[in-house]
């Protein structure tokens, strides 16, 4: 039944969907629809009140406030990794903010475009403490639990093949089942993006009995995805992300943004916040697009701390995700 629905949705939508500009569609609807994960702490996860929280969901909210003026106009559709690309292609969502890894095939063969990297990640392994494994190199012959339809599944195969090591993959559709099976002892190791491992480990009662191995076996640049062929929409999402990163670099945050708007003499800040220049108008938006996004959700650093870093239960080190001038990889082109 699900197969049938997916196929019908895909073929009907691809046959019939008009090439209407996403920006117009979003404005007419009065809401921005983002595809997110089915629940991954730190990225997109419904809290006790059913409100979605996380870095990915806040990126979606930032775009909603830039485009529609209100972060509350973001709507979320939980998707498995497997469904996510079809959902975007068919127009069921306006963009994906679903911890999705930017790869060549996904970027070129699916009719999609990756917008920017909002989190530099890498694949890792979690194992039980006390089984005598402290490096991934010792996993020869191991049974490994993994999520279906992910880059993870493929990197896993590459890693073992390159080292002539044997392994048995056990492939589930949802992270909940991956975790449950790992917990029940079905697998020797659980593999996914390192951030995902930290998030999933929080759900284990005996979390201290599990350790995340130091090996990082892949590059997982995670970021939002839009449909190919709508450059205007691509620009809007991309520059909203860049605005949040530039805001951190310029010291503009959620609490001081309104003061900066009136008081700052720094031309870079004045352009970012719409006091000078035509940044918004160039994209078909008003002058305060970035100002609103920063006011309503915060700059990149604030998002990171809130959801993944020191103010979050995940306590992930900023590592590669520091700004370029602090030793990291985050580098947003200037707004001018």
């Amino acid at each position, binding site marked *: 039944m699900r197969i049938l629905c997916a*196929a019908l949705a895909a073929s009907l939508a691809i*046959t019939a969907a008009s090439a209407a500009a996403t920006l117009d569609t979003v404005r007419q609807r009065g809401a921005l629809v983002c595809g997110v994960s089915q629940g991954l702490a730190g990225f997109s996860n419904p809290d006790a009140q059913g409100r979605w929280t996380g870095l990915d969901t806040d990126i979606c909210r930032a775009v909603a406030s830039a485009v529609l003026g209100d972060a509350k106009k973001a709507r979320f559709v939980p998707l498995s990794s497997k469904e996510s690309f079809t959902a975007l292609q068919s127009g069921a969502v306006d963009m994906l903010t679903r911890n999705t890894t930017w790869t060549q095939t996904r970027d070129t*063969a699916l009719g999609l475009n990756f917008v920017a990297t909002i989190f530099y990640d890498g694949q890792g392994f979690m194992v039980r403490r006390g089984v005598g494994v402290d490096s991934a190199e010792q996993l020869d012959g191991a049974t490994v639990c993994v999520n279906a339809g992910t880059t993870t599944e493929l990197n896993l195969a590459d890693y073992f093949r390159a080292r002539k090591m044997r392994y048995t993959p056990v*492939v589930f559709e949802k992270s909940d*089942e991956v975790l449950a099976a790992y917990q029940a002892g079905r697998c020797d190791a659980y593999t996914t993006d390192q951030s995902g491992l930290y998030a999933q480990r929080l759900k284990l009662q005996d979390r201290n009995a599990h350790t995340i191995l130091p090996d990082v076996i892949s590059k997982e640049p995670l970021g939002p995805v839009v449909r*190919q062929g709508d450059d205007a929409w691509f620009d809007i999402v991309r520059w909203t992300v860049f605005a949040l990163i530039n805001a951190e670099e310029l010291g503009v945050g959620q609490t001081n943004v309104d003061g900066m708007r009136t008081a700052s003499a720094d031309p870079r800040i004045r352009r970012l916040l719409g006091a000078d220049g035509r940044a918004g108008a160039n994209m078909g938006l008003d002058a305060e697009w970035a100002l609103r996004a920063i006011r309503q959700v915060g700059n990149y650093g604030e998002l990171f701390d809130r959801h993944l870093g020191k103010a979050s239960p995940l306590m992930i080190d900023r590592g590669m995700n520091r700004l370029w001038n602090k030793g990291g990889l985050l580098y947003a082109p200037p707004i001018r």
Partner: protein
Amino acid sequence: MRRRSADGHAPAAFLWQALILIAVLAGGAALVFNTLDNLAARGISSGFGFLDDAAGFGVTMSLIPFDETASFARAFVVGLLNTLLVSVLGVALATVLGVAVGLARLSPNWLLARIAGAYVETLRNIPLLLQIFFWYFAVLRTLPAPRGSYALGEVAFLNNRGLYLAWPEAAAGWALAIGLCAAVAVAWSLRRGRRGPAAGAALVTLAALGWVFSAAAWERPQLAGFNFTGGVTLIPEFVALVVALSTYTAAFIAEIVRAGVQAVPKGQVEAADALGLNPAQKLRFVIAPQALRVIVPPLTSQYLNLTKNSSLAAAIAYPDLVSVFAGTVLNITGQAIEVIAITMAVYLSISLGIAALMGGYNRAFALRGAAS
């Protein structure tokens, strides 16, 4: 009066049917071409060329040799065989269990009938996916880790990674097959009352089996590193799926069997009693032939349901067609339309195949029954 063709249809009706067929085909073709155009316009790859590319992923269970260097086409075959395996096994077990429960429900023994009734009401009212998860995690949680495996001598080991069995090596495998075939021949010859051929076949069976179990090389599972290797493995996903599918479908089959038996006129049963047939003879010669005609059509749809339901496998990591092909392969290649089209075609073919088989069986029975 209109002229009619040999099988009683007016020529005009043929014309209309032909026109409708052409319209449907044209509509289908337009849809396909339109989709292809749109795919190209959106920069989405299409075509079936991807099937030859290297898969690059591994699977937990495969009936044919498969590794990361095999093609997507081979991954498709792996998934297909795994689907067929659970379906065939599920259908067989569900039928046996379903018939047993259905007959038990009609038993004059109050307790037995009640237990069978409770079975049916419980299993058919709980969503199948929940039952699959129940069996899966029930299996996983009760079994020990590899190091604490339950062992039966040196030939069988049971742990939360599966059941590991010693298995005869290739030559012995063939001998085993020959032995089993010869055994079937024995049974067949005996039924026909031919003693000579039966004795010959029996000798072959004994020789083949004797060799396999005494002299042939067996591959024994061995604990190495994380787990056992060697021999054959029944993975927990497979066991959980087969158990869940067959116990669930058996509940429906039981009801069908009960209805079929109850549909046999009371007079027939009384006549059988009057003739002095014992219960087994009564079932075999009087009830079963008449009940089967009522049972087979709805049974067919239960078999179809079981096969389609086997696609829930993906939820518990059993590598069936949906999990391997419509899952992993789709994700790697991104060619949703091709992959889904192939997958749907497979399920459709399996279903039509089952329907055709059962239809043939049903016709054979209907002919031999009362000329109504």
